[in-house]
């Protein structure tokens, strides 16, 4: 039974991305939270049709990087170009237009609790297009079919399971047919079967709709399955950008620690500890 199920799983080919146009370009990006520097000069490029996974442990700066790419955080210095436009250097009107070419699936779904699933998915269409209500409904239902959520349009977000919330969030993120899709921890908090289904969904969205997808995750299995390239972040610096094979083969100690789920071992020098303690008391 399990073998049969395994055999039915779709096989996704990694596309050849040599010469593909960059859709996200990050140069020397520095971002602060208050006085604390979180990102220390990041350089990154995401190509058209690519699934780029940004991976790192807690506190590595991956959420800060995502928020800066989405324009929710303003960088201290450096540049973010989305589809060739400077995200942080354009007017509000231009940024609104640019954002219509970007879709975001948030970690918790971020569905509006006062709207039904269908109304949530239709929201970007209602706000940015002049389509009539029926056309919007048809378009939203089509996206619900894409994410295998058809039949649940009238439910409220509170009535959905964790996996369904993520699917609804994906449907809302792709309803405007964006060129770039950003996903924040898409499989976090889901059981392995549902998490694997979400991975399949991401891969099928890339293949069916030709989207470039940026995924932020700390789930290794998921990252290795979906990524064309992986960007490994650590303490606000990029350790490596490479294919799955390159990341696996890396000899970098921090990357190996992350892959093998090892915490950093810190050898405590008793003399230094006492010196620090005395200095603190002074």
């Amino acid at each position, binding site marked *: 039974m399990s073998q049969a199920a395994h055999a039915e799983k779709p096989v996704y080919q990694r596309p050849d991305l040599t010469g593909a146009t960059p859709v996200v370009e990050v140069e020397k990006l520095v971002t602060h939270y208050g006085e604390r520097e979180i990102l220390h000069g990041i350089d990154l490029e995401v190509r058209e049709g690519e699934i780029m996974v940004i991976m790192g442990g807690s506190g590595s700066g991956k959420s800060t990087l995502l928020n800066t790419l989405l324009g929710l955080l303003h960088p201290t210095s450096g540049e973010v170009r989305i589809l060739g436009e400077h995200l942080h250097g354009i007017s509000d009107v231009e940024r*609104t237009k640019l954002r219509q070419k970007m879709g*975001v699936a948030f970690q918790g779904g*971020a569905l*509006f609790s006062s709207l039904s699933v269908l109304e949530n998915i239709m929201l970007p269409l209602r706000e*940015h297009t002049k389509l009539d209500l029926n056309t919007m409904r048809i378009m939203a239902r089509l996206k619900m079919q894409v994410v295998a959520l058809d039949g649940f349009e009238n439910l409220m977000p509170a009535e959905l399971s964790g996996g369904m919330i993520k699917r609804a969030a994906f449907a809302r993120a792709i309803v405007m047919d964006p060129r770039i899709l*950003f996903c924040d921890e898409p499989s976090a908090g889901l059981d392995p079967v549902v998490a694997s289904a979400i991975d399949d969904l991401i891969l099928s969205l890339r293949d069916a709709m030709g989207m470039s997808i940026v995924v932020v995750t700390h789930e290794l299995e998921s990252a290795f399955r979906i990524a064309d390239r992986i960007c490994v972040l650590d303490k606000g610096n990029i350790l490596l950008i490479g294919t799955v094979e390159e990341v696996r083969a890396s000899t970098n100690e921090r990357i190996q620690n992350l892959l093998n789920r090892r915490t950093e071992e810190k050898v405590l020098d008793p003399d230094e500890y006492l010196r620090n303690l005395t200095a603190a008391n002074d």
Partner: protein
Amino acid sequence: MAEASERTLPTRIAGRLDKLGRAAVAAVAEVGLGGALFAQSVFWMVLGSRRAQPVRIKATFERAMEVGIQALPIITMMSVTIGMMLAIQGIYTLRVFGAEEQVTIGVGFSVVREFGPLITGILIAGRTGSSLAARIGTMRISQEIDALQVMGINPVRFIVAPALIAMMVMVPLLTFWADLVMLAGAGWYISVSLGMSMAAYTDRIIDIVSVGDVMHGLSKSVLFSILITLVGVINGANVSGGAEGVGKMTTRSVVLAISAIIVTDMVFAFITTR
């Protein structure tokens, strides 16, 4: 030990001054944010359609139902009670001078100029202001506000402007209703207690209370509606730390809104009666 305490005293004073300074700066920043939010809301109300981002009528209507129609029972009940209470106190006080009949003067002025707008404002601050803060706080925690931003939907236009319009329309209407119900409550007690007919009471109130007095109360209620909305929105937007944070900010929002209403009421009364 003594040396240590001598050394730490200036540090402690400096620490307290630092805290006081930070709190003052934060308070000024909140007032500034309130002004900016109000200006942005007016901007979207006026120019939203030109930017293809109009303030949605449906959302405004829903908020108006929530603020106005759903608050009618509590406003009515409280207004009848306060009207009767004013009549009871008025008759008791004027009995000292043997001038119970003059109670209508006190009741008429105090209801339309003070108690109508004040009680409505306080009830709406407790009911709608708190729910606005909780709603926005929850939206912030669940990243709904971030979602709006990345969808290219301005959160002020989508959340604040409909709430502000609904409040600015419904709070004066509720105040007018509260005025009528308070006067009716007071009239019922006066007619029972002093044997004055309801028709005579109504005639006296119409003679005493001018349109200007009613407008005085209603214009205050417009100010209160703006204050309640902005305080609720600012506190909701500043929520951090999960459900506990939402609870804290909701309480803060109610306390601040009621305080702002009372201070504004006093300033308004001072300026308009000179």
